[in-house]
């Protein structure tokens, strides 16, 4: 791991521990030998209150490439996640996570996770990443909401 990458990821961790929004979590994965793998994180994003996404925390995996922060990290929800802008693989289609669009090296983890939370309830119908959720969102809103609420139950907060 290059020193730039390592320093930056340690800084991300430091900043996150110092200050992160309520209901969110993010931490580097533990390797089998107990050491931390700073390039691979798990995180949780809560659905906003008073939306169909509420009362659930959605699990994310974040992979930082070797040329981070020149290149954006890859952020994934579980495969098969129901959302118009999430690919069947779980990869999230979000402009700030796209190198050719709005990714900039100064964007930090907090901004990314807040961006994902924002995306949950305000999908972008112009860049569909999967068919079922996109179609339902456009054509059959009742079905869409039903599916989202079912999904929220699956990821419901403990207790």
């Amino acid at each position, binding site marked *: 791991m290059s020193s730039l990458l390592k320093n930056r990821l340690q*800084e991300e961790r430091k900043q996150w521990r110092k200050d992160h929004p309520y209901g969110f979590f993010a931490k580097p994965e533990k390797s089998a030998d107990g050491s931390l793998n700073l390039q691979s994180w798990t995180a949780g994003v809560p659905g906003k209150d008073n939306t169909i996404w509420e009362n659930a925390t959605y699990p994310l995996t974040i992979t930082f490439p070797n040329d981070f922060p020149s290149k954006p990290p890859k952020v994934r929800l579980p495969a098969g996640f129901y959302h118009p802008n999430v690919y069947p693989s779980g990869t999230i289609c979000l402009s700030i996570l796209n190198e050719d669009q709005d990714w*900039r*090296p100064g964007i930090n983890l907090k901004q990314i996770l807040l961006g994902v939370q924002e995306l949950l309830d305000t999908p972008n119908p112009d860049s569909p990443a999967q068919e079922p959720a996109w179609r339902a969102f456009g054509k059959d809103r009742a079905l869409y909401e039903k599916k989202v609420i079912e999904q929220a139950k699956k990821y419901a907060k403990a207790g």
Partner: protein
Amino acid sequence: MSDEEFEYTDDSDSLYSDSVDDDNFKIEDSLVKHDIVQYKQHTTREMMETLHKKCTKLSEVLGKPHDYVVTLLQSYKWNSEKLIEDYMDDPQDVELRLGLSTVKLNGEHHENTGLQTYTEEAPFSCFICCEDKLESYKLKCGHEFCLDCYRTYLNEKVKQANVIKCPSCDVALTPGDIDTISGTNGSSVLLENSIKEYVERHKTYKWCPSPDCNAIVEVLNSSDIAHLVDTNQIPIVICSNGHRFCFNCGFESHVPAPCNVTKQWINKCKDDSETVKWITTHTKTCPKCDTSIEKNGGCNHMTCRKCAYEFCWICLGTWDNHNNQYYQCNRYQYEQAEKNNKSAKDKKLQDEATKKSLQRYLHYYNLFNIHEISTKQDKSRCDVVENTVREVQEGVGISWIEAQFLVDSASTLLNARRVLKWSYAVAFYCDRGYSLDLFETVQAGLADAVEALSLLFEISDVEVIAKKKLNFLNASKLLEDRQRAMVLATEETINNGTLRL
């Protein structure tokens, strides 16, 4: 028709720069008719000034600084109408959207923006590289990054011609910010890239397609172009470096071929020429199943992979007859012919037709290609014509103006050869008939005249060149006449409706 009718009228002269207002540019244009396209020539620098003027004007309208308007227009892809409309509607919304306002940034207001310097004792820790640095830059959003990271970031972003935003949020960098950070005129690089976008986005502008030429042409009656093209007229324009090109195709001048002929011809050449060339030189077709076969070994005993037919590569007859008379194929040609006569006559006819059409295409393609290559050779010779002029001047002791016939002849030659080249594309799409006979007679005349002048340029002895001045002038005059005749003949052929696309 008298020659005078083809002279182009000077009433719109102010639009063209004098340097290209050369005699020989007039001839080709009997078909083009200069007044059908009204245009202006621009250089990249002029375009830059145009954009800056646009900004200055708008900055007065909006009452905002120049820098600020540049950024606004860049975000609006130089669509000032849309910008004014939106801005008049809700200026705050525009500013917020484009990152030109910090109102929404948690209400924070940051003083001391711009370059920041630190000391070794209390250095600045940059979030991007996480290193301690002494120099940084801070935007009005309060985000601050070291100059090294900022420069890397800017180098990457200026290529994209978009407004550059803070590495962390959506606040836009103004040209002033960019120049201060990069320490050079980074913002003008960005603006230059914006010109590319501007030209490509506006239908009234086109880049000159000549290699290494970055001149721009702006057509003033762009709404007429489609009509011109529909009626087989060619919207030829000349860039400020003297390159002629078709504004519709964005391609070198293809007079006398109309745009649709040009397009089909180019596509055909692209699809067929290379493949056809390779196939004809490297393969023969299996006498039984017509598969193209490439011989990759020395033996002439061939077995078709597809139909397993065994045959002789030399006479294409069946191998059975070769057992005793190895490779003595001459006698089998007769038998082969007889056999063909007996069987599959229809198929043969069909093959012939395909072959004929291919041969016809190859005929015209070869002619076209030969002149394309010759054009390149002529061009390299004409490029040094200025040197020849100097040599003639010095060697023979005549004045500069007296030696100018060389420059004129060179340019006549180049134009005429291009017309000749494209006339072959037209011929390919013409029906056989009286009209084409006439066309080809004129074409042959033009080809003669082209070669005659080209031959004169082979002379390298300056004294001979000076002596042959009259020959140059006569050959050029003849060539101009024939070129004019070619353009007219094409026009007539097209008007007679013999074009088959």
